[in-house]
């Protein structure tokens, strides 16, 4: 019995060294050499300043910007240290109330627009940090942004298209528009190298 306990501890120490030190440090070393940009957070850097991450969404409430999806993170929307969803059940009255409030806010910012609102634009994402909206949600907001900025709608549409990713390898996932990228393009702060 004592032998088994001694062996347990010895094997635990050895396998910990292998899987808890050697393995993650190997991955870190290789990742930093092979994919340094991705391994460090896909950061968007402009004039030496970090503007954000391509992968982490930011909140927008100005009509001049495209709005991201609602975020249920604790301590304010898009809190990078509190990822998570609302966890509201489908029949919870609070969910219906939240959605109604979001529809009203979108309508208030764009009174002429009576089209139905794409569902992703009024529902909280799973991570609370979703960087994307659907192309439908971008199209819904395009006229508002063009009007607020005094831009021709064709120009706004071109920027949306440039910020849109199709299904990966033609089949996987869903088409999506990166909101931070699109808004940086609108502000003229997006570089091709990003």
């Amino acid at each position: 019995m004592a032998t088994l306990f001694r062996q347990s501890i010895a094997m635990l120490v050895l396998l910990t060294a292998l899987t808890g030190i050697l393995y993650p440090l190997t991955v870190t070393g290789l990742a930093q050499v092979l994919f340094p940009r991705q391994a460090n957070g896909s950061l968007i850097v402009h004039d030496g300043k970090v503007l954000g991450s391509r992968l982490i969404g930011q909140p927008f409430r100005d009509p001049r910007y495209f709005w991201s999806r609602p975020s249920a993170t604790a301590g304010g929307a898009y809190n990078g240290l509190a990822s998570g969803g609302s966890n509201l059940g489908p029949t919870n009255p609070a969910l219906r109330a939240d959605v109604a409030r979001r529809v009203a806010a979108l309508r208030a910012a764009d009174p002429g627009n009576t089209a139905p609102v794409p569902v992703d634009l009024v529902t909280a994402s799973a991570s609370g940090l979703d960087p994307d909206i659907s192309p439908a949600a971008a199209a819904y907001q395009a006229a508002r942004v063009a009007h607020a900025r005094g831009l021709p709608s064709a120009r706004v549409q071109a920027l949306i298209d440039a910020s849109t990713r199709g299904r990966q390898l033609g089949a996987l996932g869903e088409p999506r528009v990166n909101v931070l990228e699109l808004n940086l393009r609108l502000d003229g702060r997006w570089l091709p190298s990003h």
Partner: protein
Amino acid sequence: MTPNDWLQLALYLALLLALVKPLGAWMALAFAEQPNALTRLGGPLERALYRLGGVRADEEMDWRRYAVALLAFNLAGLVLLYLLQRVQGFLPLNPAHLPGVGAATAFDTAVSFATNTNWQSYAGETTMSYLTDLLGLTVQNFLSAATGIAVLLAVIRGFRRRSAATLGNVWVDLTRATLYVLLPLSLLLALVLTSQGVIQNLHANLHVPLLQAPVATSAPATQVLPMGPVASQEAIKQLGTNGGGFFNANSAHPFENPTPLSNFLEMLAILLIPAALCWTFGEMVGDRRQGWALLAAMLVIFVPLAAGCIAAEQAGNPALHGLGVDQQASALQAGGNMEGKETRFGIANSALWATATTAASNGSVNAMHDSFTPLGGLVPLVLMQLGEVIFGGVGSGLYGMLAFAVVAVFIAGLMVGRTPEYLGKKIEAYEMKMASLVVLIPCALIVVGTAVAVLLPAGRAGLGNPGAHGFSEILYAFSSTGNNNGSAFAGLSVNTPFYNFTLGVVMYLARYLLIVGMLAIAGALAAKKHVPESAGTLPTHTPLFVVLLVSTVLVVGALTFLPALALGPIAEFLSSVAH
């Protein structure tokens, strides 16, 4: 379901099945008793580990010694993880200066990761230091999966060996599972995931200014980007059917799962080893058809449930009707019930993930199950309640399915009045009693645990949703921990002394009682003689047996859980239709 939903489901199944044989054959080599090219290649490293660990690779263990060694090894890992969490505040690799984790949370987490459950009552980004992530959580992700494989290997030897007293050497099994299977696959997957944008660094969190300054002056004008060694943990989290996320949002977090391709690979990794082990099993018991039959039984249950879950979520949420919301799928949007889902994954990948992660005892999520439609959320709940044998955990899913197979041949034997046999071994009273315990212990833990939690104020205190859905949250928590899955209806606040303690105990019992039961069966089987096949033998590789096995799994699950499901998701579905 849209055509693309079907396409993504088909691609997933096709690639999974295409990998079953190559990986299954690889694992058969890794675990072979005769030396071969693979074990000769790793031989020097293996021998060095055994020498340093003071173990003799050729020592044969009977089932009791095997069980005691495995339990001692797991207990040592559990204690190490507990201590690491408690004192992390004084240790290096903690750039965010996180304090030691509280006793109740640390206990719950240590049990959770050691038992391959990876239930999490804490939020990763604000609780665990990088050192705890590396030396504690990542290590247990490997070792709990290796433990599952070791038990499976012992059970396989129980069928293979004739009139034998021993089941092999636990240290060799643990080492080989780690060295030849889990480590190389994880290294490969971690690097591919990094290429997609999963982060892998030891930097401190990064503060960046928001592009649009917040309207309310009280709101922060900067955003904190969390950092850390994510990819290395993510890979084994998926491959080892662990499921514990680096971040609170788990695989919904863009730094854990940034693209549809990373999502596809992570989802593939959930079922990869459990599916391939079916092939390894067939190879090792000397009849590949036996492995295919078990895999077929798993698929018969998995595929309809996956399609059902996708369809339920794609149909959208009727509660949003009349609000001017467009839930219709089109070329421009996934549509459907998007609350708690990510845009890049849409409906098909969220629902398919939910099905895979609960079919296997993985428990990671890329969408919030609590916000699924009543029927969409029923699918993960049912899959866990079926005992985590539809693929199930690495190793544990297959040995759980073998317990059901023993019960199935016994029932068939009763029907025709012959002594049941499985893989050339007579199934007698002792094996049958143990198999029944293995099948029924999780059921009892779930039903009793849920009842206790519902009756006590401490159990009801943390509900995140009213009505039938609240009951589902508690039922889900015990179904998840009672089967070592680890996923959650996360609206329930479980970081309380009551839930940390009760769920910790449930996870411990569910894991180790079953392991001891299975090793006892293995020991008894190994001691038996081989029974030659006769006209009275029920063949166990035929479609008839697959139907029998599937029926056994479904009947046990339905008899146990239908009343509880009627009070939860079914009641919620009926009320949502009625309105």
